[in-house]
């Protein structure tokens, strides 16, 4: 049943290239998938590559649809966002779902908010990368401005996620900071977007260089999320 929902959602997204309302249908099915998976597990589905990739994929559309309204390049933006959504949804389907009960250490509000906000910020950074790529081709000021706004909101979510992770860490492990590669990459990611936000204030960086920074930022996001979790031993390993 769950797999059928994901397949149907993918199909609707593909039809969305021809008729926009199909995209909304695809999103509704993704949300339905997450609700049903949550009911099946009795908790928020936020653990392991399957559930987190699916959550990330849904988050892309959660922000892409409202943001696209009023955008001159709406169709191109939504097509790219849909491609990203489908890519991550298919990737999630390749990963085996983790359906065990949560370890006691993960049963806390701080963990759920920490993870949810992290993925919301990753989604916003991903959409900002799309907007950066669109800006490089169309040179519309509106596109670059929207990229900045997405990064600013994403940066806020990411900062709050780090803070909540620190609070959780203090209650769980007695420290708000662990020296693992994941934490270090998290700081690299946070500093990278701090660099973007400061650089954009300077004339030289405004426009094209800032747009490129926004694109590179998403590569850092992907490595921080998938690369570190899959390749390195840390408190965040899959």
């Amino acid at each position, binding site marked *: 049943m769950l797999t059928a929902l994901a397949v149907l959602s993918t199909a609707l997204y593909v039809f969305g290239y021809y008729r926009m309302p199909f995209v909304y249908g695809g999103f509704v099915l993704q949300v339905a998938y997450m609700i049903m998976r949550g009911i099946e597990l009795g908790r928020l589905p936020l653990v392991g590559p399957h559930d987190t990739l699916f959550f990330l994929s849904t988050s892309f559309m959660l922000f892409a649809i409202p943001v696209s309204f009023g955008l001159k390049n709406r169709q191109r933006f939504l097509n790219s966002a849909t491609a990203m959504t489908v890519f991550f949804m298919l990737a999630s389907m390749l990963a085996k779902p983790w359906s*065990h*009960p949560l*370890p*006691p*250490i993960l*049963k*806390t509000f*701080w963990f759920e908010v920490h993870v949810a906000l992290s993925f919301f910020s990753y989604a916003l950074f991903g959409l900002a990368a799309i907007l950066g790529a669109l800006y490089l081709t169309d040179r519309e*000021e*509106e596109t670059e*401005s929207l990229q*900045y*706004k997405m990064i*600013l*909101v994403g*940066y*806020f979510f990411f*900062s*709050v996620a780090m*803070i909540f992770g*620190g*609070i*959780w860490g*203090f*209650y*769980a*492990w*007695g*420290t*708000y*900071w*662990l*020296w*693992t*590669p994941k934490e*270090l*990459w998290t*700081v*690299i990611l946070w*500093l*990278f977007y*701090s*660099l973007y936000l*400061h*650089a954009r*204030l*300077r004339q030289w*960086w405004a426009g094209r260089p800032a747009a490129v920074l926004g694109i590179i930022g998403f590569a850092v996001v992907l490595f921080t999320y998938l690369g570190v979790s899959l390749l*390195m*031993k840390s408190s965040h390993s899959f």
Partner: protein
Amino acid sequence: MDNVLKNKNMLIKILKFFMSLRTAIWLIMALLCLLFYGAVVMPVYEEFQSLHAVPLFQWMTENSPGLTWWLWAAIGVISLLTANTLLCSIESVFKKKSARQWLLVISPQVVHIGFLFMLLAHLISGYSGFRGIAVVYENSGLRLPNGNEVLFKKIDADMDPRGYMRDWSADIEYYKDGRFFRADRIRPNNPSLQDDLGVYIKNVQFQPYPAAMIEVSREPGAAWALIGSILFMAGMIILLMFKIKKEEVMGNG
């Protein structure tokens, strides 16, 4: 007279350097490079595994400079960034004190102050934090670094029908100079905090005897980190509201 003038000019140059946004950008880039190097070498060398066990500065002095140089360099860059952040914030407030949207002027500075508080927290914890791990049995005691003694009365676990541990706990009692003064229960995410030390239960086992892995931790920077976090979030919320509005006005203009 010439020397005074020269010194004054030098001072102005240094101040200008530290008050420049360009300096901030270069410093962030340098910090990114150092941390990137650290993230690459960290999984390679075993010595980094013990970085959790002792305060940062103790670990850095106990290990070879070949391993720790990037951390020392990062601390140097962060110190420069701190000076840069402080001076830029002060300059910005003075320059724009008559601006109409005062909240827009002040909010990034609140974010900066929050950031500086978090750095201070790391500095304090890096100097005087404490971490210790011990395995304890039921009815055994543990002397803490602050002189208190903890008695582990009962170690318990809640299993689900499939054999997964749903929860675990230990009932503890505090004693000072042999006299009982407090009872508490520790569970995952629910430590016992007493006299600047936290007692955490990490894991339990029941064969051959009920035992628990306990971590005792002192994180003196935690309160500063919390203050910094609150300031950071408050500043960001105000900044978000005003910046997004400003971008929209600029876009319409």
